[in-house]
């Protein structure tokens, strides 16, 4: 089954659990099989991941009616100048100390559209153009969304490590 791990990893991060991810991936492969004749691109993986995303949206509709999963209005129109000014120097070092479990928890708590672009960019190593194809948005939106996704992850990480220090202080 080509690209099954990539499909499963994306579905797993989007649904948040393995059981639902399996259902989404199975649905995606059935769709891919059915519509394979419509595949015109040169990157089968990008095409397949697009179908995984669509299957995920269908799964959301079937299982969580009314819940808004991709909230583009909130995330895509705020300007880059509203970001906090990064403090130079120590942040990069701090980021490198993150452990796997903490990172997984932080990413899992990001909004779905942030998780999606992060996985496609950092794990699948897709270009902005390819991510745009999967997510069905312009490449410019991918750029700003990815930037905000990282910003949100950094903010969450800084908060988390700050809390950790406070707790550590209380213990000692």
């Amino acid at each position: 089954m080509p690209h099954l791990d990539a499909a499963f990893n994306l579905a797993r991060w989007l649904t948040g659990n393995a059981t639902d991810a399996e259902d989404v991936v199975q649905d995606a492969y059935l769709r891919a099989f059915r519509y394979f004749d419509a595949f015109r691109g040169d990157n089968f993986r990008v095409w397949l991941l697009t179908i995984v995303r669509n299957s995920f949206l269908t799964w959301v509709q079937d299982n969580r009616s009314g819940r808004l999963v991709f909230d583009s209005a909130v995330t895509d129109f705020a300007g880059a100048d509203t970001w906090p000014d990064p403090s130079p120097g120590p942040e990069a070092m701090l980021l490198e100390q993150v452990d796997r479990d903490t990172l997984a928890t932080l990413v899992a708590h990001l909004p779905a559209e942030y998780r999606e672009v992060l996985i496609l960019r950092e794990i699948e190593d897709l270009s902005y153009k390819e991510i745009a194809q999967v997510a069905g948005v312009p490449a410019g939106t991918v750029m700003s969304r990815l930037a905000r996704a990282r910003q949100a992850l950094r903010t969450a990480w800084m908060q988390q490590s700050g809390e950790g220090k406070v707790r550590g202080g209380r213990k000692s």
Partner: protein
Amino acid sequence: MNHKTAMTLLPAGADGQLGPFRRFLLDRHIARCTSCRAEQEALHALSTVVRTSLPVHRAPPSLAARIGAALPREAPPEPVRTRLLWPQLGFGVGGALAGAALTLALMWTPAAPDRLATEAVANHVRSMLADHLTDVTTSDQHTVKPWLSARLDFSPVAKDFTASGYPLVGGRLDYIDGHQAAAIVYRRDRHIINLFVYPSNEADALPRMEQRDGFHIVRWRSGGLKYIAVSDVEAAQLQGFVTLVRQAAG
């Protein structure tokens, strides 16, 4: 490049997604902006952390099997798109046939699969699995045809189409649709084509193509014989083959 633009472009820069010109302008700004340099470092660090430390979930081994089991049953056979068939044919059997193929392609409509299609595919698969592809193995058409004719109460055409890219492999006796049938075996590259031929009282019918379990099936009736061609070659190649057979049968 001003600082605000640079800050906006930094993530794309870190991702290697900027064109050379913007890359140059951004680098020029970063070189004298400590704030941007720190931001670039942080972005690289974040990217590295996510790439190295974020758990990547591998599909459980059972998932591939589960999808595989669901695939053939759940996915309906795809209709063959006639629009694309005849331009590809030029590669397969030569431009001379393209005109005839176009005429055929226009009439070539998808048919609903039925028991006969299932049986034809099953015979085709069995012929390859059971190592019983041919009873008489020769590319000599003057051997295959008499061999079949001697054992059946009709005389199928078994012409060699090596010149067109479909060499004759041999023939065997088979049983399909309640009839003793000639199974004439051809090769297209590494794919096998089984052509089943048996008598039929029904009226002549033009070729119809369908797809089942990854195989293409073309059947037609002509001159009191029923023809069923089965193979996993591409639709256009099987169509080219059928055109050759129909011309040879006259």
